[in-house]
């Protein structure tokens, strides 16, 4: 029984850690290219590539719904809108060129400072003394031990579990889809957030009309 479950997990949720690294590298490359490229249209195309890449990452990690909606919203709507606007407003590329490199040290300094501060905060860097990681580590160890006792004859079990997403433990309790989960949460306990965000959207619509309407 458990064997089947693990196999199932391997097919749907599991991923090789190397793929994630490859995706990280590609997305960093796309991000840099988005900033560096002179032509705004090319830059937007790289942005689209970045979005697709990250959507793939999300799907691989297990957030299927978020990944799909990422493609739908960002790639399908926002970036295409960017592309259309850029094609419509006819920017000359020569205006965008700047010859000064004075701001590079500042940029490097900012990035280093930011990374120094944030790097302390990111949970992955503090593998040993955070509450969450220690909790999750202990949880997964217990899990491993149990499995080891039950399936001593299985080869390479620890290796296989290592790439299952250990922190999203709730998905392994009950196997329901993400859309169901999101719907369950959004329409029950967090329904007020839904209302507030709908009010924000209403405000955005009204505001766009107010700013652009032709007054008599």
């Amino acid at each position, binding site marked *: 029984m458990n064997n089947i479950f693990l196999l199932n997990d391997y097919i749907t949720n599991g991923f090789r850690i190397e793929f994630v690294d490859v995706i990280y590298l590609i997305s960093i490359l796309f991000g840099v290219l988005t900033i560096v490229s002179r032509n705004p249209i090319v830059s937007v195309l790289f942005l689209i590539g970045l979005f697709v890449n990250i959507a793939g990452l999300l799907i691989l990690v297990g957030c299927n719904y978020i990944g799909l909606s990422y493609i739908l919203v960002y790639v399908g709507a926002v970036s295409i809108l960017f592309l259309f606007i850029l094609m419509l407003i006819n920017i000359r590329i020569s205006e965008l060129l700047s010859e000064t490199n004075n701001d590079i040290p500042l940029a490097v300094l900012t990035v280093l400072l930011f990374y120094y501060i944030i790097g302390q905060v990111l949970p992955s860097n503090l593998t040993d*003394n955070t509450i969450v990681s220690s909790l999750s580590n202990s949880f997964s160890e217990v899990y491993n031990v149990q499995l080891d006792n039950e399936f001593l004859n299985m080869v390479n079990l620890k290796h296989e579990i290592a790439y299952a997403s250990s922190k999203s433990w709730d998905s392994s309790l009950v196997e329901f889809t993400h859309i169901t989960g999101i719907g369950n949460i959004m329409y029950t306990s967090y329904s007020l957030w839904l209302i507030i965000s709908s*009010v924000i959207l209403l405000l955005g619509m009204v505001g766009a009309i107010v700013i652009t309407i032709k007054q008599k």
Partner: protein
Amino acid sequence: MLLSSIFCLLLSNALSFRRDTAILYSRIGIIALFYCIYLSYNNLFITYLDNGIGLFSGLFYTSSITQVFHILIFIISLLILNMTGFYPRKLISSEYMSFSKLLFTKLQFVKNLTVSNIILKKGEQYTILEYTLMLFFIITGSVLLISSSDLVSIFLSIELQSYGLYLLCAMYRNSESSTSASLTYFLLGGLSSCFILLGIALIYANLGVTYLDSFYVINNLAGIVNDQEITTYIPYCLLLISVGFLFKISAAPFHFWSPDVYDGIPTIVTTFVAIIAKISILTLLLQLVHYTNSIYITTSYSWTTSLLVSSLLSLLIGTILGLTQFRIKRLFAYSTISHLGFMLLALTINSVESIQSFIFYLIQYSLSNLNAFILLVAIGYSLYAYNDKNINHNNLIDKNNSPIQLISQLKGYFHINSMLALSLTITLFSFAGIPPLMGFFAKLMVFSAALQEGFIFITLIGVLTSVISAVYYLYIVKTMFFDGHSYTYFNKLKDLKIPALILQKDKIVNKIYFDSKFALSSSLSITISILTLIILLFMFMPNEWLHMTNILSIILFVPSSI
């Protein structure tokens, strides 16, 4: 109530075709705000609310502090709506003053085209239908922000509030400066929202918690149990969030946008933008700082010390840069920054007395700032009938929306309208902290709270900067009272008679002529006089306010009794 009135207004806005009915919408807004005040006053059970009750499964909460600040926000936005709800000037005629005539006869003006350019000169604020609607969106956002007790609802409501504010700034589309100011505001506000979001995401990634209550519990327990090793990264997250908030309230290291924005947008909008956002965010910070004060980064350095740094910088920058300003709204922006320094100081100390002084300072500063801006608007209205000889003043950008822009435009204003000049003087003295006025007591309370907790250096800085800032307040007073003015009354208006007919049951009874004595309309003058009298006469009945602030701060500190 707010939401339903928003929808009603939206519907009627969409259906109405006439642009000149905007004034009526403002009046409807005033009525709705009265009802909101009544509702939140009705819910203010200080004994039962105790430390606060969670609403909507803990996403929001209500306590006496939130209720009181709701009422404050409603009152202030009511007074701001009052500026657009009524026409700014009126004509007085002694023949038409008796009650019987007022009640039973109707007045009809005979159209006179040569005059109408000046007399019927309407600001753009009377043609924007959606102004009240936007205001209501913003008020909804700030009310929700004050009473939110969950990180995500904080973010949602702060976004609701700030989108409304950006739109409000951009609403006067005919003026170039207000559009550019709105764009600045939008970009920097978006940046600060990113900071807030990053902080929230890091907190969630580290603790897996978005409820503020459980967040506080985890922090304070972890601080006791594990020698503060667990929580080393939490202060950084909180710092990121508070950087976002400081951006939004334009405290010192992040203040660069506020003078430009305040200067660019019309004065009526400036009033709203400068006050409402600060009240809501500072109240939220009060809650946040109070409950996370005991988290230390190292053994003696809690994250609120960074707020103290921001307060020190605000004090210094607000006063010193304010000295060089010659545009009056930029000056007000810098004075706001220095006053924020005082408020942040009181916030950071976090003792019973300092929280009391913080609440008092916030209330009194919002009221007197409101008074200062309303006075600017009123002075602008009262100068419509005058011709300015000074050439420099004639080619100011965007003169229709914010008529008073330079301090030198106020030269000798005392000789034109002495009462308005006196009121402005009283308000400025209250800013500067001259003893019998309200601002003095607020500063005194902050300083005594700071001294009690041993913050001697920053108290010294506070005293020094408030002395320095008195220089520029007194400079305005000096230009108003002792300089000669360059205004002349319009010749056309001097011997102008405005014909009007008095009708009784559609029969012409009498024909009278108004001479061109324009007075400020009673809505403006009543608002100004009430606010000025509050500032002036606070020392005679301070008990109510002080007791209220005292009760609120004690409630925050005493653990729940039930």
